[in-house]
């Protein structure tokens, strides 16, 4: 920590307030850095000790340019780690620094307590450094180019993970080997006297049973038995990789899992941090002379451009609405059944459970469940939320609906799987030729074909055999296949693998 005495005083004060409000965070270390250093850390995704890779350099260039031209400026950067590391930009004013500190404590509390972060490694700074060492060593041994090419391939696939797998136990992907090998009894004819046989073992039943057996046989001989979303895991287990390649792939996968919850909780996390910077600053820390600057900065953070949502704004308003509803007891049957507008407006049971409720919410929810559970018509009306569309006749944007169900649907659509397509391994031995077949679970948006082709080439290079992905294009089943770097697209009958995800699998 290298804070100036002035900032250090502010930090101690804000940390005390945060703890008094009940925030529960890892020890938090603040570093004061200039914009070059901040952009550097940001380019590394927050970890200055990461493995060498050109894409960090590219990102750094982009950030530097944005900063130089005054287009973008990073205010705050927090790393989910124990201790938590946070960076403050030297050139910011004291009010900004205070606000950022309060904001940071909100994030730290969220990292520590939200269940979606429970599986993340809290010594990630060290882990990242280890990854850096491993990759540098591999580069020395196998050549920078060779390792870099392979690393590029792995990174192109790093969104093919199963972000929910850390929270729930899936049925094992493979059947236990010995169970599969056990001889299965022939379709069971029950013992019966010959004159009773046609009654005890009716032909129809036997046929049915035979068919079931055949189905089961086919199902278990498939590989993988069930489609799985953790494509990286599948590749680790089954692709013909050298040892060092396995090492690289598995550390890329590990990092992808570490970063996944941050994509799943954008609204919640930013909303929570904003709620707390606002609460701590306005109730405790702000001096009279700082009010205007604070208000300016705060308003800038929460500003919403027309036709878009701002996760900071949506998040903080949801927390506030939840707090109010549980303070006044506006939930449960009594509230739902209350029809009179006047009564609803007056509705206040003085429960005072709001604070406790939002702490509970920040522990249990991710963006999808957060939005799904707590957006109701009242909230939509108060926030003037709407679904817009472009009128094809006039070319103007119009408000299509203010119905909270439609608003919610649209929001959830963008949030599911953090805005990434859901892709599964369907078959590791497609056509019995050792080809890898993936399927895109189609939910209304098409895959970008050009990118899909490039990604398939990468996948083929790792898998070592042709690969294909089934998706939908213009409503028709489509198979994109890559063999020896050649992309071919053809129409196929939909196999069912591209249907929406069933609820309980």
């Amino acid at each position: 920590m290298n804070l100036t005495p002035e900032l250090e005083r502010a930090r101690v004060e804000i940390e005390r307030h945060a703890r008094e409000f009940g925030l529960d965070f890892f020890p938090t270390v603040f570093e004061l850095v200039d914009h070059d250093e901040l952009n550097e850390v940001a380019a590394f995704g927050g970890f200055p000790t990461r493995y060498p890779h050109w894409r960090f350099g590219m990102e750094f260039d982009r950030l530097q340019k944005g900063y130089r031209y005054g287009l973008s400026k990073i205010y705050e950067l927090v790393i989910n780690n124990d201790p938590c590391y946070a960076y403050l930009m030297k050139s910011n004013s004291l009010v900004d620094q205070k606000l950022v500190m309060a904001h940071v404590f909100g994030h730290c509390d969220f990292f520590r307590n939200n269940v979606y972060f429970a599986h993340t490694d809290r010594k990630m700074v060290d882990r990242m450094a280890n990854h850096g060492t491993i990759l540098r060593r591999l580069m020395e041994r196998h050549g920078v180019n060779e390792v870099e090419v392979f690393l590029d391939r792995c990174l192109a696939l790093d969104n093919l993970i199963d972000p929910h797998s850390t929270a729930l136990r899936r049925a094992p992907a493979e059947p236990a080997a010995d169970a599969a090998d056990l001889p299965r009894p022939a379709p069971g004819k029950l013992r019966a006297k010959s004159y009773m046989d046609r009654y005890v073992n009716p032909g129809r039943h036997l046929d049915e049973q035979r068919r079931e057996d055949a189905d089961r046989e086919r199902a278990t001989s498939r590989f993988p038995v069930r489609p799985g979303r953790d494509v990286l895991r599948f590749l680790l287990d089954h692709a013909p990789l050298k040892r060092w390649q396995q090492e690289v792939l598995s550390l890329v996968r590990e990092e992808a899992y570490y970063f996944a919850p941050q994509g799943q909780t954008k609204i919640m996390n930013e909303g929570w941090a904003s709620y707390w910077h606002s609460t701590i600053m306005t109730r405790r820390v702000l001096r009279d002379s700082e009010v205007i600057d604070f208000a300016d900065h705060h308003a800038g953070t929460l500003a919403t451009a027309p036709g878009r949502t701002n996760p900071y704004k949506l998040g903080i308003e949801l927390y506030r609405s939840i707090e109010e509803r549980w303070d006044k007891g506006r939930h449960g049957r009594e509230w739902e059944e209350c029809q009179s507008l006047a009564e609803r407006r007056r509705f206040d049971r003085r429960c005072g459970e709001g604070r406790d409720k939002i702490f509970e919410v920040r522990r249990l929810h991710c963006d999808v469940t957060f939005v799904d559970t707590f957006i109701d018509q009242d909230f939509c009306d108060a926030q003037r939320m709407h679904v817009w569309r472009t009128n094809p006749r006039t070319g103007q944007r119009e408000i299509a609906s203010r119905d909270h169900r439609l608003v919610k649907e649209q929001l959830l659509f963008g949030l599911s799987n953090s805005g990434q397509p859901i892709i599964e391994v369907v078959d590791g031995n497609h056509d019995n030729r050792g080809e890898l077949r993936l399927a895109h679970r189609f939910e209304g948006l098409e895959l970008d074909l050009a990118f899909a082709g490039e990604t398939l080439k990468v996948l083929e290079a790792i898998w070592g055999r042709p690969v294909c992905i089934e998706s939908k294009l213009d409503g028709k089943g489509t198979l994109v296949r890559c063999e020896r770097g050649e992309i071919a697209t053809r129409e196929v009958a939909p196999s069912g693998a591209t249907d929406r995800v069933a609820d309980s699998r």
Partner: protein
Amino acid sequence: MIRRIERDRTRFNEIVRGRIRGEMKRFVANGEMIGRKGGDLVSIPLPGLELPHFRFGDNRKDGVGQGDGTPQPGQGEAGDQPGEHVLEVEVPLAELAQLLGEELALPRIEPKGTDLLEADATRWTGLRRTGPESLRHARRTLKAALRRQVIAGTFDPKDPRIVPIRADRHYRSAKRRPTAESAAVVIWMMDVSGSMGKEQKELVRAEAFWIHCWLKSQYRQLETRFIVHDAAAREVDEHAFFHLRESGGTKISAAYELCAQLMREKFRASEWNVYPFHFSDGDNWSGRDTERCIELLQREILPGANQFCYGQVRSAYGSGQFKKDLDAALSRDERLVTSEIQDRDGILPSIKAFLGKGR
């Protein structure tokens, strides 16, 4: 301390340079970068540089649609996937010239002329106690204030407040020092008579861009002059040079006379490295005028120039006779280079012919 990111950045730059080098031929032929010039940087679109991913995208091709069209998804994340976004990288012009030089194996140019220009280089390296506020040196001023406060004992590390007074203020001031520089001038001449079409001018433009790029990397000071001619010649600015469309006959000697006059009056060989370039489709008014041209070249232009380059752009109307005449009359003079540009792919060899001698 070398920062960690520098390594990745260098690597990224290497990759970008590698890509540009690999596609140099395409860049030169397409002339894609011309007009993208902003200051000393050229931004180059490099598709496919970013890592591919499976991601959502719009696969609709251009075309006419009918019906409702799909309603735009609104409210909710508008999606942070860029649509048709191609990464653009910015490359300094000098570096581009270097890449071109490597691609064509161009030799460095040895400046000629013993009388070098005296130029005043102004550098803001000095400090003064007085000056305009706009030039105040904040860091030095604060340092002086801090020193004064520490000496006076009014500085409190617990509350590090530094208040500069009048006496602390420092201002930047300029220092001049004369430097010797070799200067160069390119005199572009182009035939804009009726037979030079748009396509021909595009070729000239592309070639001129790259030649200028290279010469600029060789000389700190590079001037350019533009002369257009049909039956008469006149000096114009850059925009007019490339866009002007005249009609009428062609009298090349008019341009050469103007060029010779410029060299006599302004760009004397003793001070300047002079590079006259002339592009035409090879048609001239008459054989007599061609003789006049050759005479002008021999007597005035060639002796005063580093090298005279004539590029003949192929055109449906041109006979291409002029290049033959020049070659026949002056083939022994190595200060004359002629080359024929058939099409876009001919640009690169032509540049090589012009600049390959290192003069």
